[in-house]
């Protein structure tokens, strides 16, 4: 076997060592990682840009809609107020107390033996209204007190069929001093005062509280 001497082994070893330099290899590795980091950062930057564009678009849409929505809300409040006023007006008109039917019913209840000398009616309250009526008069007949009593009950019956809780009471009932001519005969009289009370209408609902925004 021939002896082979490599006179360049030192040079080759130095080259080999230089090629496998850990510092150099780690620098390559680090550069790779840095490149990946940079790529990832730019990808994220791109996503951020897309998101900013989307946000700007949404913000611009909101900015254009917001004044319109505020104006719409204001107009809605105005319209609702008008509607509420209109409803209230309709309710007021519909829930008015009508005196004419009551005057008619009283006139139907008064017999020919009675003369009403004074009628005073007063309406009080809103929503549920209380009407009080005072009738002063003279009744004549063989039993004028009974005539007056018949009138009181007739009024209570007539008004009770139409109004809620209609009551009719004597405020006073006294024998009169005067005699009157009725059907060609002199008849004794009685003076009376009848109080009539009745309620009508419905309780008005309280106005809804304004919502806090």
């Amino acid at each position: 076997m021939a002896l082979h001497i490599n006179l360049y082994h030192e040079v080759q070893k130095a080259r080999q060592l230089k090629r496998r330099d850990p510092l150099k290899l780690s620098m390559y590795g680090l550069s790779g990682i840095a490149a990946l980091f940079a790529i990832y950062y730019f990808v994220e930057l791109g996503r951020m840009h897309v998101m900013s564009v989307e946000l700007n678009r949404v913000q611009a849409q909101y900015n254009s809609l917001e004044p319109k929505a505020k104006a719409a809300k204001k107009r809605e409040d105005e319209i609702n107020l008008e509607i509420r006023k209109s409803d209230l007006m309709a309710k007021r008109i519909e829930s008015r107390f009508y005196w004419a039917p009551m005057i008619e019913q009283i006139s139907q209840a008064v017999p020919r033996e009675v003369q009403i000398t004074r009628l005073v009616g007063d309406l009080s309250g809103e929503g549920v209204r209380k009407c009080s009526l005072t009738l002063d008069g003279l009744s004549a007949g063989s039993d004028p007190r009974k005539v007056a009593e018949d009138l009181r009950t007739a009024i209570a019956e007539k008004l009770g069929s139409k109004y809620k809780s209609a009551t009719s009471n004597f405020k006073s009932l006294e024998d009169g001093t005067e005699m009157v001519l009725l059907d060609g005969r002199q008849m004794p009289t009685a003076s009376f005062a009848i109080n009539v009370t009745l309620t009508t209408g419905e309780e008005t609902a309280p106005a809804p509280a304004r919502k806090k925004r």
Partner: protein
Amino acid sequence: MKLAREEIQKLILGGLILLGVVYSYFDLLLFPLKKHQDAATKSAVALGPEIQNAQTQIKNTQDLEKSVGEKTIVLRQADAMIPEGSPVAWFPTMIGDFLKRQGIEKVTTKLNTESVEKELVGFRRLTWGIDIPKVGYGQFGGAICALENENHLLEIRTVQIDASRDDAETQRATITLNNLVKQ
């Protein structure tokens, strides 16, 4: 493979630099970017319902606007019933003419009180006293009926009828009524 002392020093220095670079990358670049992204996403998501609400509000108002004419017809009719000008100028004349058409003459109408309507904004309530010195009971009832049916903004509050001693056929009547007028 043995590392020389100098190489070990270089490796340690390189490692330290690497740590610094990684820390800076995350703390100065990536995390602030993510924070911005999150904030932008949140803002965009939060604006979604706001836009939806604004669009709904606009649509609701448009729908309401379409029906306002129908829903406020009573108010507009009531407005049309009230003449222009001071009520003291037109109301007594209107009542006098009205009762004259019912065959009742010599009527006196006076303004008693005036108050602002709290619920019906833009309206006020006037209370009038009407004195009718001579009227038949039936005639008076008919006039009251017509007054209540034809004037929807009136409400009679008190009625007083006194029989006359001199004339059994006629009475003296006094009524107090409320009337709604524009403010």
